[in-house]
């Protein structure tokens, strides 16, 4: 499970970085989104991957970490998801406004002179 999980994070990050470095604002936004997915998975895994264990204490079960999963990363990741979601909305609006103001989707607001780049 760890291998699959780590590979998923790695692939998402690689794709995100690649898209982030492209020159269209739409690609950049997709890249940022993928990066934030990868980050959320990473934070989620920082409490160690366990299956079938609850994050809240239950009566009758010994309150040690072996019986439960760490609840803190889940709280952290919830915050991170909300924030990155909001930021994606902001930058989307910004890209659309920039597109209509500058008439291009290029991140610099104008097409480079050399067309075939």
């Amino acid at each position: 499970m760890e291998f699959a999980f780590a590979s998923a994070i790695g692939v998402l990050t690689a794709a995100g970085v690649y898209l982030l470095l492209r020159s269209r604002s739409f690609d950049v936004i997709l890249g940022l989104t993928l990066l934030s997915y990868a980050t959320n998975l990473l934070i989620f895994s920082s409490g160690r991957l366990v299956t079938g264990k609850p994050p809240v204490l239950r009566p009758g079960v010994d309150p040690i970490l072996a019986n439960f999963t760490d609840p803190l990363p889940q709280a952290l990741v919830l915050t991170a998801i909300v924030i990155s979601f909001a930021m994606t909305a902001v930058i989307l609006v910004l890209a659309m406004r920039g597109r209509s103001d500058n008439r291009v989707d290029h991140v610099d607001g104008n097409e480079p002179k050399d067309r075939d780049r």
Partner: protein
Amino acid sequence: MSAHLPVLPIILPLVIGALMLLLEKQGILVQRVLAWTGMAGLLLLSVALVAEADSGRITAYLIGDWPARLGITLVVDRLAALMVMTTTLLAIACLLHAGTGWDRRAPHFHALFQLQLMGLNGAFLTGDLFNLFVFFEVLLAASYGLLLSGGRGGRMRVGFHYVAFNIAASTLFLIALGLIYGLLGTLNMAELALRVADVSAEDQRLVQSVAGLLLVVFCSKGAILPLYLWLPATYGRAQPAVAALFVIMTKVGLYSVLRVFALMFGVSAGELAGFAWQWLLPAGIATLLLASLGTLAAVRLRIQAGYLVLASAGTLVIGFALNRAETIGAALYYLANSVFAVAAMFLIVELVRQNRVTDRMNVQLPMTDRAIAGSLYLIAAISVIGLPPLAGFIGKLTLLAGTPEGWIGWTYGTILLASFLMLVALTRAGSKLFWQVAPDLDEADRPAPRKRRGRRRELSAIMLLLGYGVAMTIFAAPVMRYTLAAGEQLVTPQNYIQVVRGQVPDLREP
């Protein structure tokens, strides 16, 4: 009341900002009254914070009443109180300037302004790394709004760079946080400082790389060498009061560097002690040199002001990275002064633009009221460059005097050379703008001078900012004593760690 003092500078702007959103339909006057009420409250609170911190006591406040290693803590020490005070004083001047009509042009200006203050105060007061991230996001989200609202094409373009860059940096911050939690099992800074010390040998490298990630994040927020390219254009495009307020935002990054690396990788960190400083010192030196070259190269006054922000960041990083109580103290003194002086510079840019149509230096234009604008520019320039007699000089002098033996050549050379370059650049800009003035048009041709309302208030905002600098010069001894004591507190973090860990919840059973 006094028991809850540390949390009030965060709650007050939040409540005021929320109220403003509700009362927005009531018109601008209601919002201004609310904004000033909030500002007055914030001023009282920050005076109380400084008074409390000045006794040398460190106060920890447990939000939610969980013990520090589990829950979120706020900590007030001299550094935090100083930063909150600086923010409040700066914000008063910005609000004064914005109140002349700039706040009508941008929807939700006052609400965003209050939320920005909330984010800034929160970032300075928190003692928890994840909470620091959250407050970073709060202040960045508000800054996106302040920068972009009411803007068009050009501002959208730099805005996109700014937002994309900051989101990417925040993502890196989150990655670092995830790794830290996975490695060390806590995100409280004081607790981390202890756990970093006894990290096992095989995790040493991982902790180092996490610390490096954090350093990159803070440097990108604080605009240190390779990560500053977004700054001059972005700040130059923002409306003046907002640009002036943004001057403190880069200082948040530098503050975080100082707080996190002095605490977590301070004397108690064993092999990792002093991790950041070896990287930061060369970075600071290079930033300062390139920024002073940037001031020489700038064709517009507002771009030049952007590079002045960078130059002050470079100087501060040098002071922090030398990592002695004297240099940190001197750098903190310089920080407050340079925030006020550079913010004043951004407001002067606007004054020049109004009196002279544009702030481009390569064209000769007639200029009205150049005596006033010129004198204000002169005072701001003296303060920024660090010429005697103003506070910038005292800050730099103390910084140089405190430099340890091995670094004297580099530090003296860089700071003095950079100051000289800035002196040349600002003198040239001043003489181009205020002396080489094209002859005025004939009386008949000249368009009737526009009567603008609020001009006196704009001037008074600039004078207020410059007045802070002058006050810091006159009261240099007590202010310097305070900042030196803050430096002392930072190089001996044991007390901070003890206080935070020793704070017991009031109601909750541990």
